[in-house]
């Protein structure tokens, strides 16, 4: 009898438990998509981009089987979820990679509620379409209808090609975006001095984003429709930024937006006119469908304003939202000039910037800065009286959300525990696309050891020129934003240039490695992050060879990128090939004449960048040349030059001077010295580039290049040895 009872109890509990298990099968496959009239590769889950939305209720146990139907490996990370470390889904760091044609099962209890999402954490797969919404409902029924708005960016280009171009500082994307900020444009807009000062401070054209995207999506579409909502209805919209590198502004044609949650955690409702959602952030908002039988546009505009995607709420005549006007890049450049020292540091001029409160980019926003001029009209004097609202006064009244406005509805104080403070300076080199914390990539730095039960406070200063959405895996942190006990909880912190923010979290997990990284995909892959590791973590059964696994993690930011510039001109071939990573470079340069008389020159170097801003590098290499025709001359240092014939080993030092001039000082094994100054790619017009170089052997060359496509340019140049020539240049 007793055993029967216990059996019954056992069955009952089993039953109760199994009711809470929610299972999903995700099939990951290569696919071909066509968004722009061009067929390109993508990665779909269950046949769709974005991946299907997963729904759970707090208290469920999630069982998710990921079937990799591709021939290469993948992974899925559950963004913002509190779960055991081996379920976190960072391949090689926390979880076994999901090899091609295999299945991996995730199983974890759902201990929270709110708006989250999931995505691949393998290389650049997220850019190819591997992202989906992960919605956890509260146990009690939802008080109002809701809709998920998953935002993303799409490019037809191969993401690896994008990454390579970024590291080469190829400005093709800027050309596509109309953001080259060239000299002709600068002069036309009265900003010649601004541009000059900008280059003096060794900055290339600045932008708020790096990549050109063909499309922006809401739930995989440029325009998504939600006609089911009725006039007067309040709707909860779950906004998720699942893009690889795009921040989005959110505006609503139907009135104010109430922000009610961020990164899955509730905040006290804040009414705003607009807000920006950082890469990988989520916001829950409540909007009201106005009392007219119409559809209202909820529009997400890319921060660089090259495009937008809309969600239509309600049905009927469509009320459009005024699009955001184009950025005024030169205003931004001017602001950057003020903020940047010649030494390459950002100075905040004592403003103690923090928490997105002071958006320096606002100088580029015409909707904020431009006073409305009364329109050309015969009756200005009369209308100006009653039309008061139109005159400029309205603009400063746009309420934009910032982190200081977020307040938790409940106290969020950390449990008692020892407090340890860490300082992270976000650093980067835009020109070489190096992104670091405290000037070190993930692979260059040790793991940060933490102890269970301690409270970690992190003071983050952004000394780079771009904003970064810093994401912490498996924990929520408090943003110390002046709300005291009610500081909001988040797992992503957007930090703007020159800002200093403080976050703190309780080391509440038992064990494991937890990533803390910039969520801009290309920044993360460049090594912008750290790994927090719990002391005395047990071995991870998913990673039988932890040393090798960690090496795989580190390899992400150790990769070398290849680039080349090959000229085929009437006076011969000039060219350069480079292989470079975070610190090192190999390069080969050549100048080949067409006949014996004009001879050849080649140089090959291996070098390394030394300082934080990467202005300074040293190299060693060799140099071969032969010119039949040239007379030997004395160089500037009074040494007999060996322009005619040379086969030497050399060492040198390169320093980037203001105005982006590279000064290259070298000495060869025969004691001959040479100093060379080079300036490349002066942006004269959108597609025209000038360059020049001169050295102390009195060799010089000047040239120009007209960019035709991403890879091809027309070129012409004059070289003191080779003479005048023209032709084509391949830029890879």
């Amino acid at each position, binding site marked *: 009898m007793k055993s029967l009872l216990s059996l019954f109890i056992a069955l009952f509990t089993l039953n109760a438990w199994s009711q809470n298990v929610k299972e999903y099968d995700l099939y990951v496959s290569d696919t071909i998509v066509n968004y722009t009239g061009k067929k390109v590769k993508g990665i779909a889950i269950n046949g769709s981009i974005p991946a299907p939305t997963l729904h759970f209720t707090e208290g469920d146990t999630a069982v998710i089987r990921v079937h990799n139907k591709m021939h290469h490996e993948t992974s899925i990370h559950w963004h913002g979820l509190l779960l055991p470390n081996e379920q976190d889904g960072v391949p090689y760091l926390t979880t076994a990679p999901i090899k091609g044609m295999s299945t991996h099962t995730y199983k974890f209890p759902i201990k929270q509620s709110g708006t989250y999402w999931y995505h691949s954490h393998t290389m650049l797969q997220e850019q190819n379409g591997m992202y989906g919404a992960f919605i956890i409902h509260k146990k009690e029924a939802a008080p109002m209808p809701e809709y998920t708005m998953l935002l993303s960016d799409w490019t037809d280009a191969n993401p690896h090609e994008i990454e390579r171009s970024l590291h080469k500082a190829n400005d093709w994307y800027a050309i596509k975006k109309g953001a080259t900020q060239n000299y002709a444009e600068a002069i036309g807009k009265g900003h010649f001095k601004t541009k000059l000062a900008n280059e003096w401070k060794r900055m290339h054209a600045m932008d708020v984003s790096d990549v050109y995207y063909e499309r922006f999506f809401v739930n995989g579409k440029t325009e998504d429709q939600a006609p089911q909502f009725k006039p007067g209805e309040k709707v909860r919209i779950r906004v998720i930024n699942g893009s690889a590198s795009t921040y989005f502004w959110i505006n609503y044609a139907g009135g104010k937006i109430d922000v009610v949650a961020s990164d899955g955690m509730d905040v006290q409702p804040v009414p705003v006119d607009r807000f920006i959602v950082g890469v990988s952030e989520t916001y829950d908002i409540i909007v009201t469908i106005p009392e007219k039988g119409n559809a209202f546009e909820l529009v997400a505009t890319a921060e660089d304003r090259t495009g937008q995607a809309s969600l239509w709420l309600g049905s009927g005549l*469509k009320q459009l939202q005024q699009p955001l006007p184009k950025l005024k890049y030169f205003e931004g450049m001017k602001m950057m000039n003020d903020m940047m020292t010649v030494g390459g540091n950002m100075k905040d001029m004592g403003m103690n910037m923090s928490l997105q409160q002071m958006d*320096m980019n606002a100088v580029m926003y015409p909707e904020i800065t431009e006073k409305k001029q009364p329109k050309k*009209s015969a009756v200005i004097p009369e209308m100006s009286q009653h039309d*008061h609202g139109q005159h400029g006064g309205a603009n400063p009244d746009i309420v934009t959300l910032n982190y200081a406005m977020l307040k938790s509805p409940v106290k969020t104080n950390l449990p008692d525990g020892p407090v340890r403070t860490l300082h992270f300076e976000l650093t980067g080199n835009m020109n070489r696309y190096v992104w670091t914390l405290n000037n070190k990539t993930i692979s260059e730095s040790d793991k940060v050891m933490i102890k269970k039960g301690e409270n970690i406070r992190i003071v983050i200063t952004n000394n780079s020129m771009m904003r970064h959405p810093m994401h912490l895996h498996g924990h929520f942190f408090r943003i110390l934003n002046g709300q005291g006990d009610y500081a909001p909880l988040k797992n992503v912190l957007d930090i703007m240039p020159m800002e200093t923010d403080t976050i703190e979290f309780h080391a509440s997990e038992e064990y494991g490695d937890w990533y803390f990284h910039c969520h801009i995909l290309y920044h993360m892959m460049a090594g912008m992050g750290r790994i927090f590791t719990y002391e005395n973590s047990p071995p991870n059964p998913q990673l039988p060879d932890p040393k090798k696994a960690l090496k795989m993690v580190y390899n992400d930011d150790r990769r070398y990128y290849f680039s080349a510039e090959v000229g085929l001109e009437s006076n011969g071939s000039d060219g350069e090939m480079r292989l470079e990573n975070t610190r090192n470079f190999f390069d080969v340069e050549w100048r080949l004449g067409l006949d014996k008389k004009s001879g050849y020159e080649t140089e090959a170097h291996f070098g390394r960048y030394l300082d934080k801003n990467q202005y300074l590098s040293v190299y060693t290499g060799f140099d071969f040349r032969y010119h039949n025709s040239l007379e030997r001359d004395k160089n500037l240092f009074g040494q007999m030059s060996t322009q005619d014939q040379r086969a030497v080993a050399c060492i040198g030092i390169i320093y980037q001077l203001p105005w982006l001039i590279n000064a290259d000082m070298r000495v060869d094994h025969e004691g001959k010295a040479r100093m060379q100054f080079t300036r490349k790619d002066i942006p004269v017009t959108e597609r025209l580039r000038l360059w020049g170089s001169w050295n102390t052997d009195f060799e010089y060359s000047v040239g120009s290049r007209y960019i035709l496509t991403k890879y091809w340019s027309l070129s012409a140049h004059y070289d003191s040895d080779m003479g005048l020539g023209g032709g084509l240049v391949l830029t890879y």
Partner: protein
Amino acid sequence: MKTFKNIFLALVATFFFTGCDAQIKNQKTETVKVYGNCGMCKRTIEKAANEKGLVKANWNIDTDMLTVTYDQTKTNTDAILKKVAYAGYDSDAFRAPDEAYKNLPECCQYDRPVKEMAMANNPSEHQDHNMTDMPQNSDVLSAVYTNYFGVKDALIQSDGKTAATKAAALNKAITAVPMDKLKPEQHTIWMKIQNDLKTAAKHIAETNDIKHQRDHFASLSESLYTLAKSETGRNTIYYQKCPMYNDGKGAFWLSQENTIKNPYYGSAMLTCGSTVETLKP
């Protein structure tokens, strides 16, 4: 001979028109309603809709009908009407943003088919932030503060003319302060700063040159701050700093709101600055 000439002309005409038409491939023509008024509307609507080689638009002023011929593989009516709506014109598919409509010249402000979009939760759209309109209260210093904020708001808008007017009023208000009604400590402060205030106010009133006005506004603000520290009138006053002004030496101002609206650069650096002190009444 005449026939020959006619044939020739007809041929030329045919070539000419087919030549024009050939510009748009995969043609499709549709006629849709676009609301508007006048000849100027016609130009704006067609300019918004036209796209070389893709869209050719013709708006009929009498019928309000827009005839569009477009390349159906590259675009569609909705996309064209969207552009027209961004220019300020309603159709039966899209209602233009109110902002775009308001920006139309007066003669183009046609009768909209849907007059108003009831904004659901948009409380008091035009909250009056013009402090000069505040009723005078009995507080002896309120007129000084009120007009000071008037000058400040004009500088935020980079409106030199208004700044001058407000400064003249401020100058009057300073002279009119009944010193016998001031409390002893404020009396002492007032005696010290009165002249500085007047000089600065006068200088601002004398010119419409915004740069000049801002220079004096900086000293005006600092003088008034010494007073505000002991007496703010009835409201909380925020003492705010612009770190960049005067070649990075910085400058201050007083404000009734914590949100930064920088009077030293106007729109260019509107939100640049920070509150350094909160002075409670």
